[in-house]
C-alpha cells in the first residue's frame, strides 16, 4: 500500500515505437541470435530507474576531448570539431553529464584487435574521447573525420562513416548509446543499422549538421550534433 507522505518522482516519457529501433531486425544479421524473443516486461519507474550515476568532474581529463593531441604527431585526415548540446525531451540542458565517444581513423580502421579491415592504422590516432557537458549542456570534441568501413553483414556491406556516442544523462532511464553520422552519406540506403530507425524524422536526428559558422578558418571544419535524451512525463503542476 502507498505511503501517504510519499511524493513520487516524475517518470520519464516513453518513446513512439518507430522512433527507436526494434530488437528483432533480421537484415542486421547479429540480431538473429542476440535479440530476446520474449516480450519485454513493463517496469514502472522507481527510484533505481529515476536515479543514476552522476560521475562529476575527474572522469574526463583536460585533453580527453581532443583526439588529435593524444600522440606525438598529428593524425591523418580532415580535422573536425564535433559539438552540440545534450538536452532532454523538454528542451532542458543536461548539465555536467559524461559523454564518451569512439571511432575509426580517417582510413576506416579501428584501433581494436578485432578489426581486421585491411586499412592502415594511424600511429598518431587512437580514436576515443570523453567530455563533460557544461552548465548549458554543451560538449565539444576535436577529432578527424572517420572513414567508412566494410563489414560482413551482407554482400558488399559498408558502414557509413560514424562516431559512436555514449551518454549517461541524469537517470538510469536516460542512458543512451547511439551513433552519429555525416550528412549526405551515399552509404545510408544500404546500412541496416541506420535504417533500423523506421521513422524518417527520428533517423535524421542521427545525422550531424555541417556548420560553416563553427568552422575555424584554415584549421578545422565543424559538425553540430545535438543529442536529445528522454524527457519527463508532465507533472500535475504543469497541467494546472
Amino acid at each position, binding site marked *: 500500500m502507498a505511503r501517504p507522505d*510519499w511524493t513520487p518522482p516524475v517518470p520519464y516519457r516513453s518513446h513512439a515505437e518507430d522512433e527507436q*529501433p526494434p530488437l528483432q531486425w533480421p537484415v542486421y544479421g547479429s540480431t538473429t541470435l542476440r535479440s*530476446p524473443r520474449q516480450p519485454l516486461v513493463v517496469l*514502472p519507474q*522507481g527510484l533505481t530507474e529515476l536515479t543514476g550515476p552522476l560521475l562529476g568532474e575527474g572522469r574526463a581529463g583536460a585533453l580527453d576531448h581532443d583526439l588529435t593531441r593524444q600522440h606525438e604527431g598529428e593524425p591523418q585526415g580532415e580535422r573536425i570539431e564535433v559539438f552540440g548540446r545534450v538536452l532532454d525531451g523538454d528542451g532542458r540542458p543536461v548539465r555536467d553529464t559524461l559523454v564518451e565517444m569512439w571511432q575509426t581513423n580517417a582510413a576506416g580502421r579501428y584501433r*581494436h584487435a578485432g578489426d581486421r579491415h585491411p586499412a592502415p592504422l594511424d600511429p598518431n590516432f587512437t580514436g576515443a574521447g570523453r567530455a563533460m557537458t557544461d552548465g548549458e549542456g554543451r560538449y565539444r570534441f576535436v577529432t578527424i573525420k572517420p572513414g567508412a568501413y566494410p563489414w560482413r553483414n551482407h554482400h558488399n556491406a559498408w558502414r557509413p562513416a560514424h562516431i559512436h556516442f555514449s551518454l549517461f544523462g541524469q537517470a538510469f532511464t536516460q542512458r543512451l*548509446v547511439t551513433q552519429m553520422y555525416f550528412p549526405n552519406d551515399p552509404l545510408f540506403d544500404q546500412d541496416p543499422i541506420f535504417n533500423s530507425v523506421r521513422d524518417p524524422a527520428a533517423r535524421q536526428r542521427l545525422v550531424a549538421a555541417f556548420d560553416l559558422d563553427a568552422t575555424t578558418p584554415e584549421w578545422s571544419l565543424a559538425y553540430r550534433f545535438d*543529442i*536529445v535524451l528522454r524527457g519527463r512525463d508532465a507533472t500535475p503542476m504543469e497541467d494546472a
Partner: protein
Amino acid sequence: MTTPSQTVGPFFALGLPWSDGPYAVPEDAPGAFWLRGVVVDGAGEPVPDALVETWQADRAGRFDHPDDPRGAVASPGFRGFARCPTDPEGRWAIRTVRPGPVPGPDGTLQAPHIDVSVLARGLLDRLVTRIYFPDEAANAGDPVLSQVDPIRRQTLVARESDDGLVFDITLQGDHETVFFAF
C-alpha cells in the same frame, strides 16, 4: 523527439571500459563481494563482446542523487555504478555490496535489486534486467517480480557461489532472461 539508440557495436573496448569500471565499491568495502556471470546468445554460445553495466542503491537503500525524494545521501567510497566488458568466454564480474530495499513508484519498499544494462553488437537498443538476491524473504512480495511469469522469475535471481553471487544473462532462447521496458 528523442535521439534514437544504435548498437554499441563490436569495438566499444576502444572507448568505454574504465580501469576501475568493475568497482561499484572499493575492493575492501564492508560487505563487498564479487557478482559474476556469463552472457550467452540464442545458440548457447558465450557473447565475448558484450558490455554489462549495473546501478544500485547503497547498503541502506539510499542514492546520492537529487531526484531521491528522501534526500541525496552520499556513502563515502560507494559509487553504485559498475561497468564490465565480457571476456572471450562471455564472463563479466563486478565488485559490489547488497543494496538495501528501495521504494517503488508508490512508496512501498521493493526487494533488494540491482538494475542492469546489457549492450552488444546485435543489440540495437540497450537491454535492461534486474538482479534479485537469493534467500531474500522480500522477493515473495516484490511488485516487479510479481508481474513476471512465475516460470521465468528464476532468471532474475542470482545464485550463491564460492566468492559471491552468480547471475547469468541469456539473451535468447530456453531460459531467456527477463528483460524490461520502461
